[in-house]
């Protein structure tokens, strides 16, 4: 009798398990149905070709099956143009990205303080997103040309003219352009982050007489840390995108300091050196993934006590 009951309950259990497994399989199938268009496209347009790029970076010529290991990479790192482009890009990003983060926080904090015309300011700061690249480039030329407006202005103070795009100042010209274009977007992200900070916390701090600096560093910044992470990554990517403007400002072979990774990629692309190109793409992808992972780690460590 008892045994039969046991048997029965075991049977029911098994049935339930089967049912659950069936459900899970059905769920999986359904989720795959919804995901498949996107997955298929991503596979065809990004994953498979990137696999081929990795493959190209390891062989000694398109069509050959000769694996030469890391030789293409060695060649790449001995290439002076690549090294220069990498150095310039690094130099640019190391300065531009932190500026893009810090200035955006400052803007967001300013708009957070109750000043008049807040929403108008927000619109104004976002407006650079709309301006076509071409007219940005035209205006930058008018401003920073040797005979341009900025130099005219400098001459009023008796300073010498600067050849902005043909001197070591050139990265600053591009940096200003980069900041002008991206600060608004970053600022919105920080404003959203600031709005998520629990109000009670700041009220308590006010009651206890905490200073503005304390409130900023000990409360706001901690809650903003995921946003800081994201804006950093985003600005990093956008700092690569600034090539578009650099290219239009100064052509294929600009002043040495402005020769960025994209110039290298573009020029290599034109000479159809797939091995070099693939190796460079793989190096960039690896660097990006490492950087992103690193930023995640930093954020984990920095914001661990406010999450969860």
């Amino acid at each position, binding site marked *: 009798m008892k045994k039969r009951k046991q048997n029965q309950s075991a049977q029911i259990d098994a049935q339930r398990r089967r049912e659950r497994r069936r459900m899970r399989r059905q769920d999986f199938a359904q989720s795959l149905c919804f995901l498949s268009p996107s997955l298929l496209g991503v596979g065809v347009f990004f994953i498979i070709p990137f696999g081929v790029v990795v493959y190209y970076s390891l062989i000694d010529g398109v069509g050959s099956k000769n694996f030469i290991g890391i030789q293409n990479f060695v060649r790449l790192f001995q290439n002076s143009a690549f090294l220069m482009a990498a150095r310039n890009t690094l130099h640019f990003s190391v300065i531009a990205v932190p500026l893009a983060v810090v200035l955006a926080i400052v803007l967001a904090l300013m708009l957070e303080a109750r000043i008049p015309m807040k929403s108008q300011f927000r*619109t104004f700061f976002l407006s650079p997103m709309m301006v076509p690249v*071409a007219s940005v480039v*035209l205006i930058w030329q008018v401003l920073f040309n040797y005979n341009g407006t900025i130099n005219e202005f400098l001459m009023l103070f008796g300073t010498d003219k600067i050849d902005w795009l043909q001197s070591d100042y050139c990265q600053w010209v591009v940096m200003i352009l980069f900041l002008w274009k991206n600060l608004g977007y970053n600022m919105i992200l920080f404003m959203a982050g600031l709005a998520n900070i629990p109000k009670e916390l700041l009220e308590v701090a006010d009651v206890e007489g905490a200073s503005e600096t304390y409130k900023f560093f000990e409360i706001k910044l901690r809650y903003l840390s995921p946003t800081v992470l994201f804006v950093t990554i985003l600005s990093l990517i956008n700092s*690569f995108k600034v*090539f578009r403007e650099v290219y239009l400002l100064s052509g294929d072979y600009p002043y040495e300091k402005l020769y960025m990774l994209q110039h290298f990629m573009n020029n290599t692309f034109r000479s159809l050196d797939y091995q070099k190109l693939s190796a460079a793409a793989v190096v960039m992808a690896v660097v990006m993934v490492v950087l992103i992972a690193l930023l995640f780690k930093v954020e984990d460590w920095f914001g661990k006590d406010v999450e969860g």
Partner: protein
Amino acid sequence: MRKKRYFSRGVMFLLCLVFAVLFLLPTVLTITNSFMSEAEIKANYGMIFDTTTGGYVSKTVNLKFIPDKVTLSQYITGLIKSPDYLLKLWNSILLVVPIVLLQVAVASVAAYSFTRWRGKIRSGIFFFYVILMLMPYQVTLVPNYLVSSWLGILNTRWSIILPGMFAPFSVFLLTKFMRRIPYSLIEAAKVDGAGEWDIFTKICLPECRSALYSIAILVFIDYWNMVEQPLILLQDADAQPLSVFLSQINKGEIGLAFAMATVYMIPSLLLFLHGEEYLVEGIANSGSVKG
């Protein structure tokens, strides 16, 4: 104490004002300069851009906001006399509109899948999408080119539309919006016997209507100003969008460039002014990579 606060607020306001003027400057310049005649443009910026001789060319550059004489001549040249610009504008539309619609369509289905079912594999895939989204164009350029040449779509619009259609950005953003739909809503529909497709079309999509709109605006603005992709994938000049053509405009036709840039700005400007709240919400929600 209170006085001090008013003072600091005043300083902040002034600072914002300065920033705002600097930020608006290029936009305003583009628009006002588009109403100048070619002669006036030459007189102001001839120093930099003029390649021809003759006529009055000033020795210095004159940054000028208000035209001496407002004229529509640049617009007439660009829009009526030479069909080239209109053709390129049409090209832009033919590229960007399908990208926006298709990307949002593909993304909404995928986002539903990421929202509705979770598991190790799927969160792995999602994370992969995030990484892919964060890859700079320099990395995806070569793969893009390779696929286009395999599929034989190089130098056709599809070489830009198809990769754009599957760009993971919208999937990422839309998933974050959809995850905010209360689960009880979906559960209730399920109890009522609705299938997944019904839940998707009758509950999910209407619930994130504003999200769809904000993503569409973001994607539109991004692709409307693209330059690199068409330069490499669309070598046929007749098929290139106005964004590329504008950037290659003859140095002697600066006035025309300003006018056409203004025309080109109109769609994004309208979208922006009409949907600023949505746009801001869209940006704000792209704000963290996790969760």
